[in-house]
C-alpha cells in the first residue's frame, strides 16, 4: 500500500489563499484525519491529492513518486465524495462496477468484487435500483463501495458521514474503519467533527485558515493542545491566563497547579473531565445537567465560568459551593497567549 507525502503545498484561488505551506506525510496503511472548521481548506487539499486541482506551489508524492502533474484518472486514489456523486443513470450494481470495468478488470473478478462489497454494505437487495431510489445512508454506502471496488491504495473520504443521522453515522464509521483494517488501504479522512476524528484516526491533522495548526495522535491533540484554537475546537476546554509562580497559577477559583515552576504571562488549559471533586479550587454551581454517564457542571466565580464533567452519580444543586482539583499533569501550557486567535 502506498504512502503519501505532501510538501509545502499552497493553493491560491485568485487573490485568496485557500492553503498555505501544508506539509504532511502518511505512512502506508495508516488512517489519518484532516480536521477543521468548514472553509478551512480540507476539500481543497483532498482535491489536490486526487488531482482535480493543481497546487499553485509545492508537490504531492505517492509512494515517493511525484504525482503533481499526473492526471486524476492515472492516480492510485479513489475518492468518496461528500455529495456521493453517484452516476444517476446507472443502477447500484453498475455504479460499483464502473471503476473495475474502467480499469479493465476481468469480468468474473469484477463480478465477485461487486457482489462482495454490496453484501458487506448490506446492499444486495438494492443492486438493480437507481441511486435516486435509495436513502441517504444507502447512497453513502454505494459511494463507499464504488470507491473501494477499484481496490485503490489510497482512499480519500470527504466528510462521508455528514449527511447521515447519528445512529447510522456510528455504524458506517465503524464499517469504514474495519474495512480499512481488512483491506489495508491508506486512508485520508476529512471531517469537521472532532469526535469522529478522535475515534477513527491513527493521526489527526488539524487545519485552520488553510494551515495545519497541530498534528499528532488523537490523545496528544486532545490532552496537549498547542494553541487556544486547538483547545477550543477539540472538545470543551477551560482556559486561564496569568503568571505562574512556584508551580501554580492564580485563578479566580484558587491556585491551579501547573507542571512548570515560573513563567510570566501564559495561558493554560484543562479538560472538563480532568477535574475531580475535592481539592484546592472552588466555585459556585451555576448549572448542572445530568447526561447519564456524567454530570455537566458549570461553575462561576468573579464573573468567570468553567466547565466540569464529573461522574453521573453525583448530585449538585445550583448555588452550592463546590471544591475540586485538577491533576497537575492534566494542565497544559498552550503556546499562544493572544486571545484574538485568527479563526478563518
Amino acid at each position, binding site marked *: 500500500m502506498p504512502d503519501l507525502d505532501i510538501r509545502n503545498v499552497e493553493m491560491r484561488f485568485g487573490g485568496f489563499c485557500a492553503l498555505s505551506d501544508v506539509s504532511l506525510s502518511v505512512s502506508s496503511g495508516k488512517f489519518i484525519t484532516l480536521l477543521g472548521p468548514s472553509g478551512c481548506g480540507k476539500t481543497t487539499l483532498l482535491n489536490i491529492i486526487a488531482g482535480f486541482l493543481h497546487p499553485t506551489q509545492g508537490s504531492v508524492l505517492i509512494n515517493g513518486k511525484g504525482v503533481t502533474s499526473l*492526471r486524476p484518472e492515472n492516480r492510485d486514489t479513489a475518492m468518496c*465524495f461528500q455529495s456521493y456523486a453517484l*452516476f444517476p443513470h446507472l443502477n447500484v450494481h453498475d455504479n460499483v462496477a464502473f471503476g473495475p470495468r*474502467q480499469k479493465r478488470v476481468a469480468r468474473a473478478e469484477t463480478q465477485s468484487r461487486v457482489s462482495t462489497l454490496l453484501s458487506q454494505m448490506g446492499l444486495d437487495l438494492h443492486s438493480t435500483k437507481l441511486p435516486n431510489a435509495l436513502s441517504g445512508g444507502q447512497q453513502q454506502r454505494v459511494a463507499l463501495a464504488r470507491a473501494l471496488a477499484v481496490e485503490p491504495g489510497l482512499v480519500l473520504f470527504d466528510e462521508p458521514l455528514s449527511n447521515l443521522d447519528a445512529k447510522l453515522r456510528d455504524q458506517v464509521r465503524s464499517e469504514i474503519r474495519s474495512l480499512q483494517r481488512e483491506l489495508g488501504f491508506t486512508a485520508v479522512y476529512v471531517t469537521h467533527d472532532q469526535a469522529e476524528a478522535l475515534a477513527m484516526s491513527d493521526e489527526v491533522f488539524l487545519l485552520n485558515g488553510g494551515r495545519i495548526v497541530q498534528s499528532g495522535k488523537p490523545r496528544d491533540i486532545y490532552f496537549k493542545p498547542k494553541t487556544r484554537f486547538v483547545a477550543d475546537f477539540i472538545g470543551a476546554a477551560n482556559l486561564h491566563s496569568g503568571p505562574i509562580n512556584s508551580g501554580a497559577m492564580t485563578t479566580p477559583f484558587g491556585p491551579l497547579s501547573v507542571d512548570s515552576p515560573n513563567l510570566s504571562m501564559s495561558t493554560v488549559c484543562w479538560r472538563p473531565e480532568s477535574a475531580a471533586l475535592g481539592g484546592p479550587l472552588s466555585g459556585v454551581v451555576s448549572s448542572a445537567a445530568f447526561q447519564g454517564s456524567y454530570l455537566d457542571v458549570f461553575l462561576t466565580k468573579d464573573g468567570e465560568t468553567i466547565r466540569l464533567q464529573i461522574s453521573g452519580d453525583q448530585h449538585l444543586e445550583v448555588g452550592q459551593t463546590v471544591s475540586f482539583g485538577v491533576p497537575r499533569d492534566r494542565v497544559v501550557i498552550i503556546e499562544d497567549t493572544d486571545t484574538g486567535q485568527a479563526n478563518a
Partner: protein
Amino acid sequence: MPNGLRIILLLTPGLGLVMTLMIWVLYRAFAQSFGLYNFNGDDLLTLSHWQGMFQNRRYWNALEWSGYIAVVSATLAVAVAYPLVIWLRRPFKGSFLLSALIKAPYFVPGLVAAFLLINVISYHGFVNEFLIWIGVWDQPVRMQNDKNGYAIIGLQVWKQLPLAFLLLSGAVAAIPDNVLHAAQDLGAGTWDRFRKVVLPMTVTAMQASLILIFIGAAGDFTFQAVAGPTRENSLATLMVTYQGASYSDWNGAAVIGVTLMVLSLLGSIVFAALVQIVAKLMERV
C-alpha cells in the same frame, strides 16, 4: 362529475381551441390530398392525386433531397454543438461573448442570412474577389447553388446550431462537477467520461435537438429557394410549385404537404430510436 371529465372541461377553452384549429388544418390537408376541397373542380374522393405523385420522379427526388438535407444538417449541427457546449461548460475569459455569438444566428431571419451567404459566395462575391485579389485563384470559382447542397446544409447548421446549443448546454450544465470527477477518479479519461457519463445523461436533450432540427430542415423553403441547387427541389419548394400559378394543383400540393408531415414524424421516430441505440452501444464498447 367525474374528475377526468372536469379536467377536460376546464382545459377546453384554451387547449380545445388550439386543438380544433390544428386538427382542422391537418384534416383539411389530408382531405385535400384525397380530392376533397377541390379548388379546380368538383370534390371527388380519389386516390388519383397520390397515385399521380407516386409516378412522378420530381416527387421522389424532392423527398429524397429533403430527407438528405434534414439528416445531414441535424447530425452536423448536433456534432458541432456538443464539443462547443462541453468546451463552454465552465466560464472563462471571453466565453460569454462566444456563446452569445453562437446564439446570434437564431435572431437573424433565414432569408436575410441566405442572401448574405449568396453575397459572399457568388461568382462575383466577396470570397472570389478576395481570393483573386490576393492571387490564390486566377479566375472566379462557382460556389453558388452547388449540386451537393453544401450551402443549404451550411446555412441550416449555422441557423439551427443555437437550438442544439441551448438544449445541450442546459443538459450538460445539469451534470454536477462531482459526478464527472468521480468518473475521472475511477479511471475514465476525457472520451470515456463523454460516452459513459455525459452522453447518457444528455441523450434526451440530444434527441430533442436532432428532432427539432430535422423537422425544421425537412420543411425548408427559404434556403432551398435562395441557395439550393437549381436542379433540385425540396418538398416545400415543390409544394409551392404545384400550388403556384403554373400548375394550380392544390390537391397535388396537399399530397406533398402530407408527405412532409409524415417524413417529419417518421424521421423523428427513427432519429430518436437511433440515438438511443447508439448511446447504449457507445456506453458498452
